[in-house]
């Protein structure tokens, strides 16, 4: 029983980590609190719904396409809302207000267009088979979720750690002006970071949609609360911290739901957030406003 809960928790947490990675990247590199981020999660889920239901694509085609679609939306919305704010002295507060307004408008528009109902992915999209290993049941969907998450995290780390482009992004995260003086086109690099973040958010939406088989416009909104918990506990802009905190949150939620009450899982998550902010405002693993890849 405990082993099963732990496995479920780790798998759920992996998607939280994936979602939070995009959020922490956006915050850590672009230095804006971008509340529209949750929308890309919903958008990714709905795109996967359209791609699988209307176009009949399989999940392996729908997942990357939905992620890329969400990434393109992120670039467009970021450009529209934030370009003119970035140079202001009060950019962080301004961006909070502008993106709060923006995301509410986006959710309302989406609900008006698609309706508030919970939608489901086509039956049989992922095989219903499951495997039992040492008494722990693992579904095909869970294996897919874990595989996709590990692949995306590996790609992100390879980009940030192993390429010149990743080096430029890390430089820009630390000192945008100095990065510009090096000849780095910071506007283009920012757009790329928005794109990657949007892709990660969108992929998270597809995977959570798959995990719970429930897709609705405001699913990104509840996810954002978890996103905040993960990036604050993990340390703003800290990739490794987001991974650890994301998985930990999934495990804690599943254990709370399993052993105490499923109604309390959010309460526990926020109790942890408050406790971390009281004791270690810089996050559990990092320094304040760290941008570690």
């Amino acid at each position, binding site marked *: 029983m405990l082993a099963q809960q732990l496995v479920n928790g780790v798998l759920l947490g992996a998607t939280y980590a994936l979602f939070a990675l995009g959020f922490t990247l956006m915050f850590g590199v672009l230095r804006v609190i971008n509340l529209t981020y949750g929308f890309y999660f919903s958008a990714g889920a709905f795109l996967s719904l359209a791609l699988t239901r209307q176009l009949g694509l399989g999940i392996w085609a729908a997942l990357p396409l939905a992620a890329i679609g969400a990434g393109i939306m992120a670039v467009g919305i970021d450009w529209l809302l934030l370009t003119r704010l970035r140079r202001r002295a009060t950019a962080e507060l301004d961006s909070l207000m502008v993106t709060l307004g923006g995301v509410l408008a986006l959710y309302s528009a989406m609900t008006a267009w698609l309706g508030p109902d919970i939608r489901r992915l086509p039956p049989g999209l992922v095989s219903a088979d499951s495997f039992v290993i040492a008494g722990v049941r693992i579904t095909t969907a869970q294996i897919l979720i874990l595989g996709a998450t590990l692949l995306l995290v590996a790609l992100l780390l390879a980009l940030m750690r192993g390429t010149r482009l990743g080096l430029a992004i890390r430089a820009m995260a630390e000192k945008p002006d*100095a990065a510009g003086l090096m*000849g780095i086109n910071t506007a283009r690099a920012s757009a790329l970071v928005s794109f990657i973040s949007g892709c990660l958010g969108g992929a998270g939406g597809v995977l959570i949609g798959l995990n719970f088989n429930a897709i609705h416009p405001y699913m990104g909104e509840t996810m954002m609360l978890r996103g905040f918990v993960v990036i604050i506990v993990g340390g703003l802009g800290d990739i490794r911290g987001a991974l650890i905190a994301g998985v930990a949150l999934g495990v804690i939620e599943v254990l709370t739901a399993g052993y105490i009450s499923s109604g309390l899982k959010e309460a526990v998550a926020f109790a942890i957030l408050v406790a971390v902010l009281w004791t270690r405002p810089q996050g559990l693993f990092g320094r304040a406003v760290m941008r570690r890849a």
Partner: protein
Amino acid sequence: MASALEICGLTVAYGRTEAVSGIDIVVPKGRVVCLIGANGAGKTSTMRAISGLLRPRAGTIRLDGQDITGLPPHVIAGMGLIQVPEGRQIFAELTVAENLALGAWLVSDRAEIARRQEAILARFPRLRERLAQLAGSMSGGEQQMLALGRALMADPQILLLDEPSMGLAPLFVDEIFTIIQSLKNEGTTILLVEQNASAALEVADDAYVIETGRIVLHGPAATLAEDPAVAAAYLGG
């Protein structure tokens, strides 16, 4: 003589406050020109406007005769104007080697990058021992060496140095000015901003004195060094 950099009527303002009011500066090719003045006189605003970090309110900036006013910093850097900003602005969370690599961001030829890095490590031997170290863990003087080395990785047509000696121990100040002298001997065009006026006037060919956003004096550095008004205000009597 051809001028590498020509600034005409440059005005920089923050809201209603003018930091720089219609200044003219000419930097001839292969020369070292220094801009001296007190804290808050407008030196750094001038530098940031030239490199594109600030958009000027008025005036034109020409690089090799080409108007670069208002262009973004990465475009200006691509044209060969490289600035070492005030306070060094090295990437503290990256290694020394990564900082140098970023200096050559606009160079795609790996062999050329390696050749330049070798030349820079020969010039700054301290950096060689610290290549794998985080830049932020080095002393202020070493960080200034890195900031200079990083700028030289771009093989600049013109180098802008903003207060390279600021906050450094006297030993490092001497070393920095020795390096500027050797760059000058190699024919590098430099615009130098300094509070350490005596050292700046010693290395420079021409000098400008800026006070509350206006150029109040300019001429050959040797002449300005003898000027009693300059001596009283900037050379400690």
